[in-house]
Structures are given as structure tokens and as C-alpha cells.
């Protein structure tokens, strides 16, 4: 039996079938003598099995016709310009890998198919919007005229450094804000209004462990929520604006919120 010092590196090699056969027995006794390493090896082995089974089904899927056609020459061969869709998925993957803004892998639009956490955030945000945006005199607890206090108060309560985004470029002025329950946590609601009286609201909570992003509507003609969730915070922008317009405002609001959180 070959005697040599083993290290964590050997755990990977053993797992990947790269450990020379004649070292296997010595490696096994080293594992037995090092419970911590043995536990590590067991975790990595379990993870590998989980990875394999997570993707095992792909091999059994029928090959999409479009792929067969490419090979069989039934589809015109184009210059290989990357398709936009996977390009975007690649971009999203970079975002995730670099700790960017939330995940793109969760569902969008498919109501009832997504993670409940996202639905919950969107539903709470929409419910709050439906109730308070309709209030003329009691829409907010702290008015925009007291903005500094509003920001400090909500930041303290929610547990995030909140800066009310400036949406004047999008035609919206801050009306004020209020504190709301969000499940077992607290949420800040910031209400905005344009010169026609159209209102949108921002709903921000510190309770989120998900990475997700999407749009959500609870009813056909009801307001829509555009939301982002990331580790440690969730944000939804709700309004009845045309979808593209809401998306633009939401993007601006979210960018400023994030900058505020990081400041």
C-alpha cells in the first residue's frame, strides 16, 4: 500500500475518478482517520448525485425538431450569430455570478407557477396599493414635505437604508409614505403621483431570501407589480400604467433604491 499525505485535493480527485487505483486503499484509511474530511467527502458526493439527478431527465427528452433539422440540413445554415435568447440568459448568469441584481431564473408572468415568496411580495404590494392609492386624504402617514423624517423613520422600522427615489424625470412626485406589515416583517410603502393624479407605489421589505425578478398582476384589469427580490430585500413597484411605462419607472426607482441601500 502506498503511503503519502492526502489532502482535500484528493477528495475531489477520488470523487472524479482521478485517484490512482493503487492509492485508493490508503486514501480510504486516511478518510476514516479524518472524520471532518470524511464528512466533506460525503457532502460533495451527495451534491454530485443531486446535480446528476437534477439534469438526468434532459437525456430522456425528445430531441427538438429544430435541432435535428440543423444537422440533417433541412434548415438553412446561417452564420452562427448567437441568438438573443441564450445571450440574455448568459448575461443573466453573469449577473448572478457577479452578485448582481437578483435572479432571472424564476418564472415570470406564469401566475401560480413561481416561487410563493415572489407572489407573496407582489400580492402584498398590490393589496397595499389598492387600499392606499385610492385614499385621497389618508393615503400616507408621513407626507413628502417631511421627507427626511419619512426616510429615517421607515429605514429604522424596515431595517434597510431607504432613500425615496426621485421619479420627477418620469413625471411622478413623491406624495409620502407609510409603514405596513409584510408577513412577519415590516414594509415601507412610498406613494407617488403624476400631474394627472395617476398613482404608483413602491413597496420595500427587508425580508427576502430569494433571487427573483418579474411582473405580476393579481387581476386582469388590476394594477401590476414589477418586483425584484434579492438576498435581504425585496421591492415591488405597483401601478396601473401601461406595462412598458411601468417598467421604465420601476427600473429607475429600483436603481435609485439600490444606490440608496448601498450608500
Amino acid at each position: 500500500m502506498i503511503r503519502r499525505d492526502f489532502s482535500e485535493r484528493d477528495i475531489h480527485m477520488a470523487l472524479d475518478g482521478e485517484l490512482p487505483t493503487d492509492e485508493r486503499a490508503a486514501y480510504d484509511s486516511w478518510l476514516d482517520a479524518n472524520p471532518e474530511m470524511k464528512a466533506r467527502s460525503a457532502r460533495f458526493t451527495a451534491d454530485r448525485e443531486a446535480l446528476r439527478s437534477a439534469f438526468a431527465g434532459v437525456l430522456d427528452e425528445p430531441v427538438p425538431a429544430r435541432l435535428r433539422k440543423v444537422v440533417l440540413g433541412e434548415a438553412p445554415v446561417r452564420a452562427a450569430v448567437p441568438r438573443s435568447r441564450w445571450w440574455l440568459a448568459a448575461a443573466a448568469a453573469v449577473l448572478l455570478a457577479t452578485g448582481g441584481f437578483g435572479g432571472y431564473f424564476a418564472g415570470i408572468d406564469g401566475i401560480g407557477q413561481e416561487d410563493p415568496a415572489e407572489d407573496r411580495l407582489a400580492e402584498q404590494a398590490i393589496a397595499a396599493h389598492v387600499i392606499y392609492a385610492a385614499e385621497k386624504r389618508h393615503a400616507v402617514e408621513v407626507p413628502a414635505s417631511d421627507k427626511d423624517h419619512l426616510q429615517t423613520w421607515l429605514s429604522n422600522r424596515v431595517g434597510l437604508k431607504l432613500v425615496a427615489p426621485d421619479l420627477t424625470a418620469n413625471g411622478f412626485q413623491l406624495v409620502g409614505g407609510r409603514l405596513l406589515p409584510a408577513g412577519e416583517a415590516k414594509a415601507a410603502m412610498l406613494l407617488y403621483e403624476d400631474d394627472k393624479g395617476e398613482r404608483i407605489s413602491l413597496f420595500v421589505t427587508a425580508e427576502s431570501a430569494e433571487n427573483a425578478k418579474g411582473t405580476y398582476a393579481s387581476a386582469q384589469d388590476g394594477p401590476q407589480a414589477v418586483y425584484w427580490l434579492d438576498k435581504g430585500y425585496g421591492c415591488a413597484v405597483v401601478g396601473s400604467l401601461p406595462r412598458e411605462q411601468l417598467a421604465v419607472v420601476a427600473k429607475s426607482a429600483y436603481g435609485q433604491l439600490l444606490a440608496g441601500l448601498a450608500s
Partner: protein
Amino acid sequence: MDEKKAAILGEIPRLRRYARSLLRDRDSADDLVQDCLERALMRLDNWQTGESPRRWLFTIMHHLFIDQMRKVNRRGEAAMLPLEAGEAVAKPAEQLEGIASREIIDALQAISPDRRAALVMVAIEGFSYAEAANILGVPAGTLMSRIARGREELRGLLDDTARRRAIRIVEK
């Protein structure tokens, strides 16, 4: 059908699996496979006799993937994708994914593309270190450290998920 094309057809399921583990979304993954197949067919002559079709195709696909990732990184567009784009990207998670699968797939997507590719190549696709290093175009040492770091990162993310779940249960 000539032999080369038959051999390529036979590799499609594996290519799809690799693409899926890199990109997760089914349509995006198939788009990547399609790009790969198109490029492969244009370069059929580059495929040397005796070379494994699998290795040849995986190399082509990996280059497509990594080139694109680099471009995306360089452009610095990471800050925020337009919502419309996000919508094109995100598809409801595969309906049959169990919770455990979903967690590990999420975690896999969250590690760096280089590490993800290295880990998947060896742990799922079953390539040897030498083969994988060759396909990815990196020295064996680099491949090994990517695999080791990838595994640790993946485990760390799964531990985080489990911890958060535990906290939620405790809080209830």
C-alpha cells in the same frame, strides 16, 4: 445520412444537458445547442477523423458560451437588463423539478461560469480531468482548482439556503 451527421445527432442529448446546466432555461439552452450545431456543420472539415464527436462538439459549444460570457462582462451591461429582456430569459422553472433539484440548480447558476463549466463537465458529463481541461482550453491545474472552488461554492450556497429555511421555521 453520412456517418458524421449520425454521430453528431447522437450527441445532441448530451449537448442539451450540458447547455441546460450552463444556462438553466430550456429554450436558451437549446438556442445555444443550435448555434453549436450550426457552427459544427460549417466546420465539418475541421473535425479530424478519429476525434471523438463528443469532445469536438463540446469544445465548440463551450467556446460559444464563454465568448459570449466575456462579451457580456466587458460591455458591463450587467447592471440591469431591460425588463423585456428579462422576460425573454426567464421561463417558469421546469415543472418537474423537485425542491432539492431546484435548490441545487439555483446554486449552480449562482457560481461563476468558469467554475460551473468545469464542475459540470466532470461531475455530470463524466469527462476525465484531461479531457475536460482540453475542452475548456485550460491547464489541468486550473481545471482542478475550478472544480474544487466550484464545489465549495456550491456547497456554501446550499448551506445558506438550508440555514435560511431553518431560520424561517424557527421564526414561525
